[in-house]
């Protein structure tokens, strides 16, 4: 049993792989080369499944170059909504001669290969199902333009797979209309390709595999979006006014989406922009501009990935110490250094929490879903201004660049919170002002904005020692008081940071802690654990640093807590150890996944069961 992959087991139970049907629970992987234009085809395929009412996700595994190298697009459809990555592929569409062999050999028995006839793959093994299709030849039926032909060959496999899986043609057509919105010619040509694919399948392929789509109702009203676009929407609806960035995968599309949305929705009556988006010369400049803007009263942000975070380190220490609000998106990828720029990982946690020399401690917001990319990004701007500190939003490549299903986003009912800013009138009334005084006992001081028309307004901001009135000081007591206040401010942040999401189970003794994109895989794994092993679990998903009281309470309810992370060094767990009392530390265990591929449920299940077995003797 433990040797056997449970998905295979499911197949077995349903009768040996090929005969009984597997409905609305499969992964399709399209293997192509990048730059070949297959992206549209893949999105059409994904969306047509979505339109069948079946929960679905799409993940693009692409190389760090622009064209000509192997790329894999994986669509996972799952009737229960488990759309994290799954290691096993059910239907392989093998379009790339360079990887076809390995791709086919990697399959579990009983799975399906749709492939370009000329690749002669069927000789490779006898325990998978081969459906050869003469794609190149079929493409010649549509057009004589060779460039177009290459593009359309992609749409052919959508037709083939759609027909094989029982996807309704009208849904494919609708997906095509959406994909090529407004481009009539493209819509027509692509629909033609689909039709040819369908026709070929009907005429030449005898379906012997079990995988099938059936209409359900789990996607009605839902949207499909990537996390970066969702973050961008969150920023726009947070009223961001200054966004600065420097291109870097996988964060670039965040600012590019933002620019697209802002162009449409953020102009005044005269058609003038109510925002500035600036492509800086590098990340030091990007974060420096965002700091200057935050200081001067804009809602400001920048977005980057690991190397940029490292470069921002000095400036972030300034913002912490001088107490300047801004939001920094870190869409993480695989480190260290340039690492694997197009793979996913959660390995910047320690960097973000502690960024910069000296005693620093940062607020980090960690969305786990595209909906949270929207709502928590929006909230991050409130927190930054309320707390007067840099706030990080940590997403990752998997969440940021892949396609996820979600309920439509809602605007928050609470208005924007702009924090403690004194106007000229406030100053006139108060008659005094000290920039770094702890007036309210929450360790958060008041600030004024440059340009405030009152003689008391001005103060001097600096990253060197200062007293409560922002005067230069090298005095030990001023320094210590200020640093202690900053520490208290971090404690204030505990009560304001988004609380964890807890899925409790009074009968469970084992706890799981995860965060970010691991969420879907953890959810699926919990089902596996209970169904296959009878292991019930509680689950807490962190959504922010600093930790809040819920974490302590959660650990107290568990015998053991597995912290599930996508990094080598158990970084979140390390932060927990740095803070938690020893009784709680003693309960912590780690499940670590850091290959650069998104974590999958089976991995978690296997690791956890192995650990539990050890634990229990």
């Amino acid at each position: 049993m433990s040797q056997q992959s449970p998905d295979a087991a499911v197949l077995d139970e349903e009768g040996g792989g090929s005969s009984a049907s597997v409905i609305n629970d499969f992964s399709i992987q399209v293997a192509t080369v990048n730059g070949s234009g297959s992206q549209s085809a893949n999105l059409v395929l994904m969306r047509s499944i979505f339109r069948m009412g079946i929960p679905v996700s799409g993940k693009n595994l692409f190389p760090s170059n622009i064209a000509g190298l192997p790329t894999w697009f994986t669509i996972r459809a799952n009737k229960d909504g488990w759309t994290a990555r799954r290691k096993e592929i059910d239907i392989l569409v093998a379009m790339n001669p360079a990887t076809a062999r390995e791709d086919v050999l990697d399959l579990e028995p009983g799975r399906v290969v749709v492939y370009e006839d000329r690749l002669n793959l069927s000789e490779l093994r006898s325990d998978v199902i081969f459906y050869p299709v003469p794609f190149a030849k079929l493409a010649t039926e549509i057009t004589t333009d060779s460039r177009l032909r290459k593009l359309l060959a992609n749409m052919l496999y959508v037709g083939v797979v759609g027909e094989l899986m029982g996807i309704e043609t009208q849904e494919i057509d609708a997906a095509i209309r959406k994909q090529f919105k407004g481009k009539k010619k493209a819509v027509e040509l692509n629909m033609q390709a689909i039709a040819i694919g369908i026709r070929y399948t009907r005429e030449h392929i005898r379906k012997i595999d079990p995988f099938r789509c059936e209409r359900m109702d789990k996607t009605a009203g839902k949207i499909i979006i990537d996390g970066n676009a969702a973050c961008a929407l969150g920023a726009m609806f947070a009223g961001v006014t200054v966004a600065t960035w420097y291109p870097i995968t996988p964060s670039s599309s965040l600012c590019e989406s933002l620019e697209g949305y802002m162009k449409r929705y953020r102009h005044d009556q005269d058609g003038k922009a109510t925002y500035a988006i600036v492509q800086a010369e590098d990340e030091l400049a990007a974060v420096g501009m965002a700091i200057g803007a935050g200081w001067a009263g804009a809602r400001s942000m920048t977005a980057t990935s690991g190397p940029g975070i490292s470069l921002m380190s000095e400036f972030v220490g300034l913002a912490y110490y001088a107490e300047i609000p801004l939001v920094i998106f870190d869409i993480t990828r695989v480190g260290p250094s340039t690492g694997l720029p197009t793979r996913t990982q959660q390995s910047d946690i320690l960097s973000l929490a502690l960024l910069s020399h000296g005693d620093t401690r940062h607020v980090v917001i960690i969305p786990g879903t595209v909906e949270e990319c929207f709502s928590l990004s929006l909230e991050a701007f409130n927190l930054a201004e309320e707390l007067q500190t840099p706030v990080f939003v940590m997403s990752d490549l998997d969440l940021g660049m892949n396609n996820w299903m979600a309920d439509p986003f809602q605007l928050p009912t609470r208005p924007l919170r702009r924090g403690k800013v004194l106007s000229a009138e406030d100053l006139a009334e108060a008659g005094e002002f000290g920039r770094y005084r702890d007036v309210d006992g929450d360790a958060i001081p008041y600030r004024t904005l440059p340009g405030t028309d009152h003689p008391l307004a001005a103060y001097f901001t600096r990253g060197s020692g200062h007293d409560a009135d922002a005067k230069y000081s090298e005095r030990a007591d001023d320094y210590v008081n200020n640093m202690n206040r900053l520490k208290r401010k971090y404690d204030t942040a505990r009560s304001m940071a988004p609380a964890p999401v807890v899925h409790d189970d009074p009968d469970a003794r084992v706890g799981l802690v995860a965060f970010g994109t691991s969420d879907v895989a953890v959810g699926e794994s919990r089902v596996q654990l209970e169904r296959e092993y009878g292991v019930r679990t509680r689950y807490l998903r962190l959504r922010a640093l600093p930790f809040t009281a819920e974490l302590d309470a959660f650990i107290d309810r568990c015998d053991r807590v597995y912290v599930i992370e996508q990094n080598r060094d158990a970084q979140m767990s390390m932060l927990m150890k740095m803070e938690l009392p020893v009784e709680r530390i003693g309960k912590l265990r780690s499940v670590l996944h850091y290959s650069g591929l998104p974590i999958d449920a089976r991995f978690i299940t296997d690791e956890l069961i192995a650990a539990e077995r050890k634990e229990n003797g």
Partner: protein
Amino acid sequence: MSTTTTPPRTNRLGLGIGEYKGGDSTLCAGCGHDAITSQLIRAFWEYGVEPQRVAKLSGIGCSSKTPAYFLRQSHGFNSVHGRMPAVGTGAMLANRDLVAVGISGDGDSASIGLGQFCHLLRRNVPMIYIIENNGVYGLTKGQFSATADYGSKSKGGALNDLPAIDVCALALEMGCNFVARSFAGDPKQLVALIKAAISHRGTVLLDVVSPCVTFNNHEGSTKSYPFAKQHEELLHEISYVPFFEQIEVDYEEGSVVDVEMHDGSRVRLRKTERDYDPTDKAAALAMLMRTNHDEELLTGLIYINEGQPDFLASLDLCETPLARLGSEAVVPGESALHEVMESLT
């Protein structure tokens, strides 16, 4: 208040010069930077800039401390070493109504900050950018900076074996439309240039030789008071006629060139023997190259090109400073979100 004391001199806003001062300087007595500070105070006072509209920005260094010593009623930001350009750019994006004064050192701008300095110039961010140029790192005790002249001598006796970066030539190369050089020991010229700078829209680069009396004022230094005094060559005599004080004076035909600034003020250049045209960029570059070679310290308005769009113009920003926009202006309504959501189904 009705006693008859002579009223303090005030500017057009009714403010005395005291309102433009800052905290006490903590620099070495005699430091060139303090001289520049005095001229900044005077120029802003004479021009009559509302102190509250000014944002003072700096990096790190003795020079970068000076914003604390003038315009006490203006917000100031002493940021990190070499990165003031970014901070200033961000501040101007947030509030286009500000008058940004950036003060930097030669180390701050030409060594660690060279990249940001160039990109600020290239963007034409509205800011008066003053380099208090002493050829050394003052605050870290006298190492050569990237503007130290080739062959100049350190206090310890070492010879600099790298060529100097000419920040004026570099600014020209980066497209700056107002490039000037002055000397901390030439208050009249400096005040006129600063006032002209206030009148300019876009980046102003003001390279001011500002001797470090502690580490670079010795024999063999090319940034010392004695050297600068001996080698200063005026491009022209410069004066400034503010828009609110347009007095006509007769000048001998051809002896004076007036440059009209965007706020209606005029910069008046009275010719020296040089007959220099500050609107000819190629000539400016050639002249810098030649005078650098000859170890002349050329001062005056090196290049000016009024009327070019600044960075904010190219961004097509709304009139209201972004920092002042209320929620209603920056949060698109429910319907916008709905529209986006629809497109994603």
